[in-house]
């Protein structure tokens, strides 16, 4: 499977496999999301087929984009960068391949079981217990290989471990801990289990995991990508290394406290929600420090954004990172939360982070890796530019639609008439959302179209590189 020709000193075969699959899962995941969005606008699109009703499709979408696309990207970039920053091959290429193959099988089984309605019913932790355990084992294999690769480096030539590895490691350790604790359950059959937590403790543990899946999987891991690929693509060192160290420790120490802000105005003690909100607001400082650190890396070279479309993805991702890490803490404050919670504003916030930050920084890194791994230019730089605008306009359409829809929902739900009665029925608020659900679907179609363009560009680039290699071999023969 390893077709590496240009960089024999690194184990790049598994990285290539994970990189291409990440793009495939990006297409599949966004396609599912867009179809689910269309179902909310036009419910008849359920077609009365249980496997693709919104309730199942939405979970298949979140699992595909977060764990399949996000997970594959994190594995690919971690295996790619740990070798280069430490000047050494993977500790075990076989273990990396085992991890990648098992992860692929697990993800396919996840989509099948979720479409059949098999779920633990826990947000972002839906997989049934046998798959849950399988995912945890795969994750530990991935972590172990990463740690051992760093440990095996030549300490004289590579005494310092580059900061991107710290972020990856922080993510791996914390996600293991969070995923295992939230998944603790008692199985009662092959496909069913019951959580060992119940009531308010279950809610607290669930959102301790839920928000930290965002904080460590979707933030720390992708910041690792940012700290490696932005300097590499910009060909300039990161603006401040010390700021990156501060960013890392502030994230590690601070993020774990935020989860309770998901449970404002519930049975949870009031002070826990307040604590979650206070720490959330405090986290604006390191988050913006990190975003500025990435953006200021371009100091003196901003003109490169005119011609380097891959860099555009990376810098636009940082702009969305800054925006969503400001929006999130504001939404966690009780006064704002009273309006925003349970509305589409939350969905808009999640997608400004997911599409704008996670997907765009991943896309930038994947384009960079494709060229390095196959030692070639991209098939079409113009298509990357086209992809950039499709992704950006799609994301903006999506989040603007959800902002308007969410705030309108919140205001309609709390409106009273002169007799103290609710001014609107729930059904009226649903009907009022229709134009925005259509607008969101259009945003999704644009973003998904960009992903399809990317897949085409990647496939053609690989074909082009392979054709060049074949002709070079023939010429030498």
């Amino acid at each position, binding site marked *: 499977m390893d077709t590496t020709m240009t960089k024999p000193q690194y184990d790049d075969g598994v990285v290539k496999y994970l990189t291409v699959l990440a793009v495939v899962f990006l297409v599949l995941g966004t396609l599912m999301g867009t179809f689910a969005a269309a179902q909310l606008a036009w419910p008849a699109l359920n077609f009365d087929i249980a496997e693709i009703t919104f309730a199942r499709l939405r979970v298949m979408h979140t699992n595909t984009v977060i764990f399949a696309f996000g997970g594959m990207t994190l594995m690919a970039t971690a295996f790619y960068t740990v070798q*280069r*920053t430490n000047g050494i091959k993977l500790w075990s290429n076989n273990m990396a391949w085992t991890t990648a193959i098992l992860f692929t099988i697990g993800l396919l089984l996840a989509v099948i079981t979720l479409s059949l309605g098999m779920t633990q019913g826990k947000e972002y932790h839906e997989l049934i217990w046998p798959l849950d355990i399988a995912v945890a084992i795969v994750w530990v294999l991935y972590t172990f290989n990463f740690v051992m690769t760093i440990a095996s480096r030549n300490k004289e030539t590579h005494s310092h471990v580059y900061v*991107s590895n710290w972020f990856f490691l922080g993510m791996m350790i914390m996600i293991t801990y969070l995923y295992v604790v939230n998944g603790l359950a008692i199985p009662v059959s092959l496909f069913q289990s019951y959580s060992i937590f119940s009531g308010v403790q279950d809610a607290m543990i669930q959102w301790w995991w839920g928000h930290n899946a965002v904080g460590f999987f979707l933030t720390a891991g992708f910041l690792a990508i940012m700290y490696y690929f932005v300097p590499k693509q910009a060909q300039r*060192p990161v603006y401040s*290394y*010390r700021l990156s160290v501060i960013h890392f*420790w502030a994230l590690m*120490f601070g993020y774990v406290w935020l989860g309770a802000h998901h449970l404002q105005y519930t049975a949870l003690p009031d002070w826990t929600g307040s604590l979650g909100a206070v720490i959330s607001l405090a986290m604006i400082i390191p988050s913006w420090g990190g975003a500025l650190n990435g953006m200021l890396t371009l100091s003196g070279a901003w003109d490169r954004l005119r011609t380097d479309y891959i860099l555009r993805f990376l810098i636009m991702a940082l702009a969305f990172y800054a925006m969503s890490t400001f929006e999130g803490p504001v939404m966690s404050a009780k006064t704002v939360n009273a309006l925003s919670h349970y509305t589409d504003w939350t969905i808009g916030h999640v997608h400004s982070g997911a599409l704008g930050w996670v997907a765009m920084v991943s896309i930038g890194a994947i384009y960079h890796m494709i060229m390095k791994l196959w030692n070639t230019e991209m098939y079409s730089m113009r298509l990357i530019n086209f992809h950039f605008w499709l992704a950006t306009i799609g994301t903006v359409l999506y989040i603007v639609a959800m902002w308007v829809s969410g705030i309108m929902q919140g205001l309609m739900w709390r409106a009273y008439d002169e007799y103290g009665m609710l001014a609107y029925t729930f059904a009226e608020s649903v009907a009022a959302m229709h134009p925005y659900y259509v607008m969101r679907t259009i945003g999704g179609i644009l973003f998904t179209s960009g992903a399809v363009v990317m897949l085409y560009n990647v496939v053609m680039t690989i074909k082009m590189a392979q054709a060049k290699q074949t002709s070079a071999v023939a010429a030498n023969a």
Partner: protein
Amino acid sequence: MSNIQQYFSTDWSAMTGQDWAGLIITVLIFIGMAVAFWWALRPSKRKELEDQKFKVLNDD
């Protein structure tokens, strides 16, 4: 007692073992973060840390 004093008042005798564990962990993490910030930001560390950022540009 003013509103602020009331808000921050604590019935220490009612603290459970879990409350104490949470309090101690919180304080230790605060101290740990302060130490990490001091370690990274002290002037004598500047050159050593900032030199690391150039290495990544020549790794492949």
